[in-house]
């Protein structure tokens, strides 16, 4: 693993701290330097890292820690607590509309995993007794509609498509279809787009307004680097984002992007993609993600002693 060296170092520092009876400010500072590196190597945005380390340092040199009998464990505990707090609570629920259909729109950069997620989400809703329909609003990518139809069929969810028509019209048509055939949830698959592409951003804004989307979900690749913050805040400012879905978490990335976008937008991360198959879908667990970012698995036992 690329991060082994670092996470090992980090754990050594933490272990050293935990062995101490008393901590000086310099001890805390040294530990924080390692925490900072670990977060940066995990792709947490550097500005978010700055804030985070400052916050933890303040708490760590406060009376709470230095007067404790096991100051080292206290510091570790604070790091973990603050990280988990930043990731938000588990809220893997969809905001259903009071009158159906509930309309969900998936947006994000190219190749993030929207189309795959549309089918996964559809299957998940079906399992909960809902009756979903998916709208094929990516009219640009070669074979995007074919791809959506194949994955949706595997999920047993119908697709509303009008070929290479107008995305806004297709979304409207799909909503009308919901009302006609009593589908209670509409999932809109959109084309991948860059947040700096004004025309494409206007398009999703227009869809949002035209059909009254209840929940805009930003689909983000967990391997994203420092750009995650720009992407998330830009989609949020321009289109309005209600929640986030992280994909490709089955890789070995630390996934610091999750922390960054959460810190910047404050939007809850609701679900994750953990593979290419339909069943590779999970609710988001903030505590697991916190551990993963710092590579803290082994450190949990230390925290428990605190």
């Amino acid at each position: 693993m690329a991060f082994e060296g670092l996470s090992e170092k980090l754990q050594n520092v933490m272990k050293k701290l935990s062995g101490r009876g008393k901590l000086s400010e310099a001890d805390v500072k040294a530990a924080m330097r390692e925490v900072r590196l670990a977060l940066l190597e995990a792709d947490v945005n550097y500005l978010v890292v700055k804030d985070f380390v400052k916050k933890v340092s303040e708490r760590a040199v406060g009376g709470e820690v230095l007067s404790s009998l096991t100051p080292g464990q206290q510091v570790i505990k604070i790091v973990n607590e603050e990280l988990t707090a930043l990731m938000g609570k588990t809220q893997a629920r969809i905001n259903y509309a009071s009158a159906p259909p509930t309309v969900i729109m998936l947006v994000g950069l190219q190749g993030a995993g929207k189309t795959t997620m549309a089918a996964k989400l559809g299957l998940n809703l079906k399992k909960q007794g809902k009756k979903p329909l998916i709208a094929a609003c990516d009219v640009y990518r070669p074979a995007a509609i074919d791809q959506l139809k194949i994955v949706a069929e595997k999920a047993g969810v119908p697709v509303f498509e009008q070929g290479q028509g107008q995305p806004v019209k297709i979304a409207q048509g799909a909503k009308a279809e919901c009302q006609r055939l009593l589908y209670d949830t509409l999932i809109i698959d959109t084309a991948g787009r860059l947040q700096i592409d004004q025309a494409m951003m206007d398009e999703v804004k227009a869809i949002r307004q035209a059909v009254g989307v209840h929940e805009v979900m930003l689909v983000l690749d967990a391997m994203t680097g420092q750009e995650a913050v720009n992407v998330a805040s830009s989609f949020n400012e321009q289109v309005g984002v209600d929640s986030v879905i992280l994909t490709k978490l089955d890789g070995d990335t630390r996934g610091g992007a999750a922390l960054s976008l959460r810190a910047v937008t404050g939007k809850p991360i609701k679900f994750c993609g953990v593979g290419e198959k339909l069943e590779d879908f999970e609710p988001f667990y903030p505590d697991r993600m916190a551990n993963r970012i710092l590579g803290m698995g082994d450190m949990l036992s230390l925290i428990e002693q605190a």
Partner: protein
Amino acid sequence: TKTRDNFSQRVEELISYYREIDDEFFEELTDLLIAADVGVSTSLKIIEELKAKVKAQKIGDPEKVKGLLREIIIELLGDEPVGLDQHSGPQILLVVGVNGVGKTTAIGKLANKYTREGKKVLLAAADTFRAAAAEQLAVWAQRAGVSLIRHQEGADPAAVVYDALEAAKARGTELLIIDTAGRLHNKKNLMEELRKINRVIERGYPEADYTAYLVLDATTGQNAVQQAKVFSEVAKLDGIILTKLDGSARGGVVLAIRSELGLPVCFVGVGEGIDDLQPFDPRGFAEALF
């Protein structure tokens, strides 16, 4: 782009703010590299080199440091753009990478480019896994005006490659480009499948000149280093295609990859259109970084 402007503006601000070069100045420069996804260790390495040069050349002016930093980066990236060799015999190009980075699109663009340059190009759809992967490649084949070898969804990708090699021999194909399924580098069985494809190519057409590119998404962070490492263990890798550089991401992680693995960037993707592929230009890349 907007972010790029912000970034270079920050560098300018930083440089005008510091009248003298001190540790804090170098620390800020390190942060700027990290913000471009260069990664901690490579950023530190670059800044160390910069410090040494600043000291040796007795530079006291922060303004001059910028030029020096750019020089170091260009040198690290390699000065000459690299692409497919000019080759008279048959060539094979294998394209690999993790999911959704832009492999199929890059192949469409390359097929078009080399067809325009007068080569007889053939495509192979060895992604038999992802839904409508072959259909997507077929659209690109049609746009570029080239033919395509494909099997059913779910077929053995190595068998597609084998057939494509035979077709290439029989048809006198000058360039065969093989599309593969996106795979995460930590998936053992998928990486074994790739090893097999690599072997089929090496054994099946030894006379051909064989090149393999790893496709990387410029928005990817430090995980890209691991991707490059593991992919180069199962297939021979000659270079990188860095995609989605039309976005706001600067793709600084290729500096880490070049520094740790010596793998050069050959092409960059700058959009979804058939002409949105360019040879890599280290100078331009370094400029864009600042």
